[in-house]
């Protein structure tokens, strides 16, 4: 990612990594700004309202929840639900809360996200720029696959994994995540690469660059936003996955969502809403963290002049 990148996209690099295009916005109250920020703030309220309810509930004690108004802040703040959700809640026999499955979730998510995005981005690139005979047919099947309710595929998948001897292993689970993530991700990358100006690709071909060289030197550096979207999709999907994690592995590999499910989804007995909320927020922290830091990568892909260089 050194020479070609710098010749094609370096010009924008330093400037564009700062954020959106153009100079920093000036501090002026224009009608357009009022409209933009007004809308965004109102919209944000809609998005934040449930968060408010969740955080407030997670900081209340159970007696207060029973009587209280769901929107009211706690009269007496307690962090006990958070502590309990993380390290004390009983999820069946084990009373160590979500902490039990945290590292398993990391062990599952990292390889699954990396492998699925790597494969899908190469697929998308091959489909967009190197279309070979029959590619369209496979791609159509793949898109069709995006619509199959995954519950229907549970048993065939068990049979397939059993036949190749990977049932119950981490590798098997990574394959499952890669397979079920592939339709949407491939589509994502294919369509993004298609929308890039073709001149870039053609120029590189004229220079004699091959499949992988063009992928790594030109396509990758120009598609950070779409990689961020893919990462958001996969990190969230895999981190929050419960069904695959529990069906294709064993208890010593169960992800954190199994504990979350056990805390939140117990059918019988009193529901501890505050612990439920805290557990959900805790489980959501990792994807949330990814969302926030990925903002840095959310730069403009193509700057003017990059093509003509």
């Amino acid at each position, binding site marked *: 990612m050194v020479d070609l990148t710098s010749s094609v996209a370096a010009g924008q690099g330093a400037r564009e990594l700062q954020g959106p295009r153009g100079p920093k916005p000036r501090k002026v109250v224009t009608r357009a700004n009022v409209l933009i920020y007004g809308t965004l703030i109102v919209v944000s309220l809609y998005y934040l309202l449930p968060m408010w309810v969740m955080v407030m509930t997670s900081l209340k004690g159970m007696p207060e929840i029973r009587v209280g108004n769901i929107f009211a802040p706690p009269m007496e703040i307690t962090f006990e639900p958070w502590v309990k959700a993380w390290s004390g809640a*009983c*999820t*069946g*026999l*084990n009373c160590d809360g979500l902490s039990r499955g945290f590292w398993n979730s990391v062990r599952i998510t990292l390889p699954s996200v990396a492998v699925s995005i790597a494969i899908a981005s190469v697929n998308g690139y091959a489909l967009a720029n190197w279309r070979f005979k029959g590619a369209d047919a496979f791609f159509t099947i793949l898109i069709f696959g995006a619509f199959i309710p995954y*519950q229907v595929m*549970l*048993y065939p998948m*068990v*049979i397939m*994994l*059993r036949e190749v001897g990977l*049932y*119950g292993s981490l590798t098997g689970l990574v394959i499952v995540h890669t397979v079920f993530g592939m339709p949407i991700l491939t589509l994502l990358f294919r369509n993004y690469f298609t929308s890039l100006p073709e001149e870039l690709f053609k120029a590189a071909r004229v220079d004699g660059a091959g499949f992988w060289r063009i992928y790594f030197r030109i396509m990758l550096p120009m598609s950070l936003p779409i990689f961020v979207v893919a990462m958001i999709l996969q990190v969230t999907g895999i981190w929050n996955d419960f*069904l695959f994690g*529990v*069906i*294709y592995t*064993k*208890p010593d590999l169960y992800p954190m969502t*199994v504990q979350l*499910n*056990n*805390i*939140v*989804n*117990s*059918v*019988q*007995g*009193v*529901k501890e809403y505050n612990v439920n909320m805290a557990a959900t927020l805790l489980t959501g922290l990792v994807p949330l963290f990814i969302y926030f830091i990925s903002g840095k990568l959310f730069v403009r892909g193509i700057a003017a002049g990059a093509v003509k260089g």
Partner: protein
Amino acid sequence: MTIRSILMAGGAVCAAGYASAAELEVMHWWTSGGEAAAVAELADALNERTEHTWVDGAIAGTGQTARPIMISRITGGDPMAAFQFNHGRQAEELIEAGLLRDMTDVAEAQGWKDIVNPPLLLDACTVDGRIYCAPISIHSWQWLWLSHKAYEDAGIPVPTNWAEFVNAAPALEAAGKVPLAMGQQGWQQNGAFQVMMISLLPKEVYLQVYRDKDAEKARGPEVGRIFQALAQAREMSRDSRVQDWNQATNMVITGEAGGQIMGDWAQGEFQLAGLVAGEDYTCLPGLGGNPTLQAGGDAFYFPALDDPEMTAAQGELAALLLDPQTQVAFNLKKGSLPVRGDIDLSAANECMQKGLEILASGEAVPDVAQLISADSLTRIEDVFVQFFADETITAEEAQEQFAALIEDAD
């Protein structure tokens, strides 16, 4: 030294003498407070009284969540050592496919035939004369839970049977209460219907309809009366808009609702809220009518494993599940009734005692799950969901739909 002797018996059945330590993965869906405490009793018993270790595979939710997981594990060729299933017809296919272990040897060595009461629990585990599961607890549906506070507020006495309960409804409504709390989910509505069938009619009708699939009976006037009663229940629960059963129970606990038809697991909610049976709430088995209980409940099944050590360990676990000491400890925590008739449960409260009496008198019928397939049951539930949601559906229409499904049931 009774513990020793049981262990010896368990061990002797499965392997000659000493069985080496194994890790037994046990899958179940008991995760709420009382349930988890009950499972802990089982795990402690296994860990302390045998060399084996209990590996907990708890998956919360209904059987609907856990079932595909269990089936996948078993068909994927990597099964757990034991798993919880509602006993009934669910496991038949797994047995046919040879995926479950035949536990008859353990059952005979332990004399399960003599100790399990009511005997129909063991029948539910038996296919072609072989025993495939170990029953562990009994749950029954036939209970009406009544809030003393609600009736005090309305200024009328607490009803002692269904007819009085229906008559008291207007007074409760006048006092701003919901006469009948009911969660708006098919299984709860279907449960209420079955309870009425068993409690308000002779138990033969229930058996004719569900066991013999007698569609004429299901169309008949007796069952028609039950549908009328169900329409009354719909009327009385109109303002009960909760979903989960425990939210409905909470309405009874707070005195917001007069009563609720729910299984004995509701007991745990009252206990946790610090209410005392007989003082703060009343439980009427069989709706104060027929003292007959449906004996459903939980059982453990054991997948067929290749490893002889694991197989031996499974046997020990099975023996332990029916051991008197484990039975008492487990069922007291879970609020269910023990599967053995010969143990002392004086620690149980008033409601549990009532249930025990009925069981001791032999007035038990098999649970619906043992009589008709889960498929037919789901379709019947769909009828009740519609019936309760749409007041324009008459009792007669619902009865006809029900009878048609009974005709078609397997």
